[in-house]
């Protein structure tokens, strides 16, 4: 690990100011950052500890939603009575990721900022456009079984690893931030991540020193909340394909709310509202689900080892819809 200067922040704006220096980073849970610092993939020269800020509360909003402090741990968020009762898709997504130990440390804000687990990103003696811009992407013609099929570019096919962020995308969460100059903004998760294009090292719209302070969930959505995660082992593995869903079926057996977001297949948490619109109002028969899958995957591109994710996503989508129609879910 490279040397760094450590400081503890007392207030959000002060933290943002401290971290707006070049090559500075915030640290909260640290479960991904320290892992990457040990491998010298992340090499901040200044580390601003934000764990003592008062940002670990969950409060209800006037709109009937929840405002979650960025330091709320993944364990606390997944087990919070309001989340369990009204946003079970979020609880299930969080619980699908990592381990008890990691969820106790990992924070809400930090979870959004996890880096990819692409082998080449982690392999410091190999080229990687995300780690060292301009060096190339060996994954495209190499080991890419776990990597993305949607949102990719000729520079990068790294998948976004988060489960939590998939549910947050589904729920139309907004990410509140503070900048070094004290200005704040609320960024919808849909606008938070950047596609890799030819700058895969730029993963989100945060500016230097900009600190996530809260995540706001709108009022709950009625329906069955499910999170399905297909992976190589039953626990503690990243998704090959995952699907967060909120689906409501009316008295006539038609789908009257359909929200779907996918993990493991995209360079960012993946949601296509056109797919939801296509399914809404239908009875979810095989033909319409096939059309929905075609639409979802029309731009999907496999690179050999990860070709299987295309049929796997189709099958997962079908299972999620059929199960909701049968009235089964969390």
């Amino acid at each position, binding site marked *: 690990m490279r040397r760094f200067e450590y400081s503890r922040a007392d207030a959000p704006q002060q933290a943002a100011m401290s971290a707006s220096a070049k090559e500075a980073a915030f640290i909260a849970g*640290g479960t991904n950052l320290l*892992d990457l610092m040990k491998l010298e993939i992340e090499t901040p020269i200044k580390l601003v500890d934000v764990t003592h800020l008062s940002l670990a509360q969950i409060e209800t909003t006037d709109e009937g939603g929840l405002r979650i402090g960025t330091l709320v741990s993944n364990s606390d968020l997944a*087990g919070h009575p309001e989340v369990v009762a009204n946003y079970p898709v979020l609880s299930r997504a969080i619980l699908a990721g990592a381990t*008890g130990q990691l969820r106790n440390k990992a924070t809400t804000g930090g979870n959004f900022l996890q880096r990819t687990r692409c082998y080449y990103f982690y392999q410091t003696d190999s080229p990687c456009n995300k780690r060292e811009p301009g060096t190339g992407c060996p994954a495209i013609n190499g080991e890419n079984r776990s990597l993305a099929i949607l949102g990719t570019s000729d520079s990068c096919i790294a998948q976004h690893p988060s489960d939590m962020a998939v549910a947050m995308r589904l729920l139309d969460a907004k990410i509140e931030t503070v900048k070094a100059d004290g200005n704040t903004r609320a960024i919808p998760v849909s606008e938070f991540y950047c596609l890799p294009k030819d700058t895969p090292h730029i993963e989100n719209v945060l500016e230097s020193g900009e600190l996530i302070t809260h995540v706001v969930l709108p009022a709950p959505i009625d329906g069955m909340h499910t999170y399905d995660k297909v992976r190589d082992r039953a626990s503690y593995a990243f998704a090959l394909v995952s699907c967060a869903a909120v689906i409501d079926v009316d008295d006539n057996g038609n789908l009257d709310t359909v929200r779907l977001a996918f993990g493991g297949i995209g360079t960012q948490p993946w949601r296509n509202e056109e797919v939801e619109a296509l399914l809404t109002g239908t009875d979810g028969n095989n033909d319409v689900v096939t059309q929905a899958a075609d639409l979802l995957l029309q731009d999907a591109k496999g690179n050999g080892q990860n070709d299987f994710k295309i049929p796997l996503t189709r099958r997962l989508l079908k299972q999620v819809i059929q199960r909701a129609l049968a009235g089964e879910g969390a």
Partner: protein
Amino acid sequence: MTTLTLTINKQDYQLDNLDARTTLLDVCRHHLQITGPKKGCDHGQCGACTILINGRRVNSCLTLAVMHEGDEITTIEGIGMPESLSALQQAFNDHDAFQCGYCTPGQICSATALIEEVKQNWPSYVTADLKNPDGLLVQEIAERMSGNICRCSAYPNIIKAISQVLESEVTAQSKNATTDALQGSQVTGIWSPPPSQTQIGQSSNHSQASNTLGERS
């Protein structure tokens, strides 16, 4: 000169000019000779370094010591020593829940916190009803322990050991809850698990527990 004070197993340790890069695991092992927490992968994947911070299990390899001034840190040494084994330590012995033993301190720290999590009704990925998790189920224990790897694959006996203590503590808690409700007293803190039947020298009545276990597994 900067001084860092860490509270480990209820004892204060002062560290002068500690390199900020030092993890809590390395402070314990290399600076304080608290060698219960083990270094396996050093990347949060194996769980051998699991300790408790303010009652919660974490990977001590993935956190910096300088971030933990004022926290209550507990390693396996603080859970029980040879002359004062905790219920879980005794159960691991009784069920032969290890072979080489390298992962055991992490397994026991993790399981100690798991029992509190179950008592506090935390759900897991395999929980059917998120509002009412049945933490006693074998699949629940397996899922909740997935952050602790055992290369000797002693998993069946690890689960038996945890099941035994979990059953007795959860049963004790529901009895206490009734008593507490009657007396209006506070629920005991996370660090005060009641002594096990074994610890207080009484053999427990296992008939009901074994029946339940049999059905669950």
